[in-house]
């Protein structure tokens, strides 16, 4: 029987374990559990871990590992074995279920710049788009791309939307949809997601203790606010 995972080098200073190439909640739970296991069973030379939908990447210092552990084969082989061990030993626990966070979004046309195009393409009303987007609880699967950018899934099938062909400049706080995912841009950035609204929630605060508002494992609800409420910088409503 073949392994339910694949481990491969991501260069000579990083390695990835991939559990699949699809968005799946149990796989993401396992990835988060593996990251936790590695934090508790840290080895010298491990510099960083990157949680993604269904994969975990380790960034490491091969020179330090070679010096410290002098593995018989390659340093990658050494890291490979640790990843196997992490897979075997990491247990999904209920305490890794994250918080439920409610995010205020203004869906007015001036912020949801792609709402009209999406409505026309999907042959549904803007109102329906907003209802569908606010009507679900999403899971934060990973934070990536930009500091604090949450990848959340999955939006209602009716809202599945392909990325724009050419990225455009996106305003901070913009809430977008790409494929089955929804996300929020923390910064000015070129982006290809379809923008349906804007939030005043700060996703990244470089001088706060937590740095980022959301983490993998959290659950998110969007709720609709007026332009005035959004601009007033409505804060979290737990």
């Amino acid at each position, binding site marked *: 029987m073949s392994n339910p995972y*694949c481990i*491969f*080098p*991501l*260069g*000579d*200073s*990083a390695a*990835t374990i*991939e559990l699949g*190439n*699809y*968005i799946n909640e149990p796989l993401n739970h396992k990835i988060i559990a593996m*990251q936790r296991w590695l934090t508790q069973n840290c080895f010298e030379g491990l*510099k*960083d*871990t*990157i*949680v*993604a*939908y*269904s*994969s*975990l*990447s380790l*960034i490491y210092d*091969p*020179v330090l590992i*070679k010096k410290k552990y002098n593995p018989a*084969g*390659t*340093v*990658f082989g050494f890291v490979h074995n640790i990843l196997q061990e992490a897979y075997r030993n990491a247990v999904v626990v209920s305490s890794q279920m994250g918080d439920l966070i409610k995010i205020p979004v203004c869906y007015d046309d001036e912020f949801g710049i792609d709402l009209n195009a999406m409505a026309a393409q999907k042959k549904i009303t803007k109102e329906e788009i907003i209802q569908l987007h606010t009507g679900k609880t999403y899971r934060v699967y*990973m*934070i*990536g*791309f*930009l*500091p*604090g*950018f949450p*990848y959340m899934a999955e939006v209602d099938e009716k809202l599945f939307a392909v990325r724009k062909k050419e990225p455009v400049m996106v305003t901070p706080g913009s809430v977008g949809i790409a*494929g089955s995912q929804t996300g929020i841009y923390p*910064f000015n*950035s070129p982006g290809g997601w379809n923008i349906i609204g804007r939030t005043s929630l700060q996703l*990244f605060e*470089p001088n706060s203790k937590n*740095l*980022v508002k959301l*983490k*993998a494992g959290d659950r998110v609800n969007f709720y609709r606010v007026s332009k005035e409420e959004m601009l007033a910088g409505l804060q979290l409503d737990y």
Partner: protein
Amino acid sequence: MSISIIKPGLLGTIQDMGRYGYGSMGINCGGAMDKYAAQLANMLAGNDMGEAIMEIHFPGPQILFEQNALISITGADFSATLNDELLPAWQPLLIRKNTILHFPELKNGARCYIAVHGGFYIDKWLNSYSTNLKAAVGGFFGRKFEKGDQLCFKESPIYFPALMKPGKDVRALGWKPDIGSTYQYPNEIYFIEGKEYPLLTDNSVNDLLENKFIINPSSDRMGYNTKGPELILQNNNEMISSGVSFGTVQLLPNGQLIILMADHQTTGGYPRIGHIISAHLPKLAQLRPGEIIQFRKTDISTAEFMLCEQQRILGIIQNACIDNLNKLVC
């Protein structure tokens, strides 16, 4: 103890060896593009390898030294000149105060590093001095240098008047490391296979290994866009986002390659054709738009060996630098 930026030049930032440990928050590593030159700059200036250094591009800045300083300049050759005197690179330099360092001419390379003995007086953010331009945090106020900026450096125990030559603005100290093969064959860049490499068609594998790829003008600290033959995968399934690293070579939907550099984002969703080996990232970081890359495939054990060897030699150089400096000031 400070220097002032009279003219900022194209893009000058504070960097170090990168910011690690925050990847799962989307906070990228950043750091010097050419870590070999950055490490050597620090060693020659008598610093730890992880001190804050300046990374500059051409056209370079004009920098006024308001105090005597021990510095070093490594990496790209922009004809570093103090007042009117051409300075040697890759060598410790004692600089007299009230002089101006400038960079009149691009000779070769893309990024030049300046280290000052003692290091710059800059707060670390998340354990690193590196500037995160996107998040506008870290380094010098989270931004590139601007006219009038004053960068303080830590006080040095060196008593400069005893070491300077009377009437001279600069004294080059007499040790210079052998940078050996680090930048030899500057266009030959080794990579190891990425996860999606086996999906390339036979023709595309041939194209990748036999053709030259030109670095596009849109290339920057985030990534090098290249122009070459259009590469094709046998089956091009949509991928979900996953972690990437410095040197990851991705295949874009238009068939062209992008190489992720120091300021790359933490995750990406394009097929991973290969990964540039760490020992060759310094020479890649010194290639400019318009220059050529010739990809050469190698394996993980060679990649690891070359990196360990490069760092081993750097360790020897560092010890020699410490010894020499101790002898000088004692």
